[in-house]
């Protein structure tokens, strides 16, 4: 749980603060991506730096200048690949790839290069590369700007995957990701960007692979990812009214996954619902269901329920998009089938 503090920040600002503190701490940390500098680069006032699509990093160009804060052309394979090469050659690049969907253009660089290098080269390389992306449905941004894709990166050996759900975690996990020597995909859910939460000013780190229990409970466990954590907590609140005590776990990182915390919880509660905004097949929901089904089989009183998006791209029309991500009601319903 968040350290007691007076200060409240949005996730977008927590991310910006982590970036700034990382760059202050280590001159090898650089940032690059489309529109990170924006208009400010060519003669405009430094304060007009865009800081990427959501402005997260706009304080960086004025502070650190054009050598360490770089606009890229629209060339995802090229600049993500350059990030991989720069990491292999000793920098700690943070690449802003804008939206998770756009990593499709750099997939070879992530999968075949970044993810395999350490292994193929027998451990002789450190690859401290962080790739930041926005993800998720909810803005009617349609099929090519709303995907989650974290399941795919969780499948890949050599890659780590981070999915913060609070501003506090976003800061601590991003600082950890930047100073981790592995390639990390850092997913920021756009629906979480603006809501504020307590964030200490000083730099701090949250280790990768450690889940957080967001609400303690005894009858059933819900594991929820990113924006789904809030919905799970709402569902838990509703269910509490019916006398069902729900434990809500936020894994915070999907690779590595903190199996222990999840298994420990299910051993106590005897039930599990996994809530995931991705399409169902080969999803993180499936992974967690499989792990628990295998390792906590004897504890389960009923089937593990997966509450996911449908096996569809994200629709544009609000009437359909509303029906895309798991709703509070769908979570409640799933819990009821096993409680």
């Amino acid at each position: 749980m968040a350290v007691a503090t007076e200060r409240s920040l949005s996730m977008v600002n927590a991310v910006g603060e982590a970036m700034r503190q990382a760059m202050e701490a280590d001159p090898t940390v650089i940032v690059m991506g489309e529109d990170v500098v924006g208009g400010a680069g060519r003669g405009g006032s430094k304060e007009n730096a865009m800081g990427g699509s959501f402005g997260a990093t706009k304080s960086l160009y004025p502070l650190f200048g054009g050598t360490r804060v770089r606009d890229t052309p629209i060339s995802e394979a090229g600049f993500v690949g350059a990030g991989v090469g720069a990491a292999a050659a000793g920098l700690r690049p943070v690449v802003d790839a804008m939206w998770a969907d756009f990593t499709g253009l750099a997939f070879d660089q992530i999968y075949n290069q970044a993810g395999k290098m350490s292994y193929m080269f027998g451990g002789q390389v450190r690859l401290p590369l962080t790739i930041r992306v926005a993800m998720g449905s909810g803005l009617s941004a349609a099929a090519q700007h709303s995907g989650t894709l974290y399941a795919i990166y969780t499948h890949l050996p050599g890659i780590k995957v981070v999915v913060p759900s609070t501003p506090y975690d976003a800061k601590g996990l991003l600082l950890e990701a930047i100073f981790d020597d592995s390639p990390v995909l850092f997913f920021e859910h756009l629906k979480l960007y603006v809501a504020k939460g307590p964030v200490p000013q000083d730099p701090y780190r949250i280790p990768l692979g450690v889940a957080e229990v967001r609400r303690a409970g005894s009858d059933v466990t819900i594991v929820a990812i990113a924006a789904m954590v809030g919905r799970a907590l709402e569902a838990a609140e509703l269910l509490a009214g019916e006398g069902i005590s729900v434990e809500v776990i936020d894994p915070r990182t999907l690779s590595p996954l903190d199996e222990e915390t999840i298994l420990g919880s299910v051993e106590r509660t005897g039930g599990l619902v996994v809530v995931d905004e991705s399409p169902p097949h080969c999803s993180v929901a499936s992974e967690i269901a499989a792990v628990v089904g295998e390792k906590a089989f004897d504890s389960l009183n009923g089937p593990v329920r997966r509450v996911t998006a449908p096996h569809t791209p994200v629709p544009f029309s609000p009437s359909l998009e509303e029906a895309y991500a798991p709703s509070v009601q769908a979570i409640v319903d799933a819990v009821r089938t096993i409680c």
Partner: protein
Amino acid sequence: MDVSADTLRSLHRTMLTIRLFEQRVAREFRTGEIPGFVHMYIGEEAVAAGICANLRDDDYVTSTHRGHGHCIAKGCELDAMMAEIYGREDGLCKGRGGSMHIADFSRGMLGANAIVGGGIALATGAGLAATVRGTDQVAVAFFGDGAANQGVLHESLNLAAIWRLPVIYVCENNGFAESTPAAYATSVADVASRAAGYGIPGTIADGRDVLEVLAAARDAVARARAGEGPTLLEVKTYRFMGHFEGDPEKYRDDEERKELTANDALGSLEARILADGHASEADLDALRGEIEAAVDHAVEFARASAFPDPSTIERYVYPEQVAQ
């Protein structure tokens, strides 16, 4: 350039339709009724109009996130376009796509695309389809100056060159990719200069003059239809609005904007039509009224159309199979 009065009037109608449609979309967007993002084509009308005037219904175009102009120039119905932008069941894509994914296969409009550069390879493939079938259809890929730095352009130009595909690669160079100036992101002043590295023609047209665009495209389309292969055609243009509606536009230079918007291709064309006596002020007013009414109708149509039924969310993931 020698063009008929009909051609001039037809270009003008297309451009004015785009202008008025876009102005209305921008206005309605501000009311909050249109979901998602919209990217306006205002100021660039001469590109779509000048290029598509050379195309037939069975020719193909692939488009961008800034695709309304391409749709209109390729002959899409305003009603169904607007309904799509509003996310309604009567939209061209039944509300599943929205502004960034408008498509109308019945007009060879193979889709707006929210992946920058996403349409380039698709048009190459459409050109390949024409070649394999042995028809004289052509395909046009529209893309921006920002998209010109995507590797897929390089791959596609090379592929189209060695296969002599009937594809025209149209770079709409409006000087910016979001906030990033082309002068920064692109290592050469003219994207068209890259054509030489593929052994294909690279031509430049001034987007402030629709007739220049028309002529450049005519040559490229003729080459393509004759089986002589692809062309890279760069049109220098300027977007009058923000990157998307709501863009604070801090990256723009007011001087530059003033200068460039002063040279509006639509305004020049109207002046020429009047000067040459191809239409009177009254004719133009009537046309404007007619188009405004059509746009009004489109908005009404969109508003009256239902939102898709949420229970159909899983439809269309896979094409509905036609029996073989």
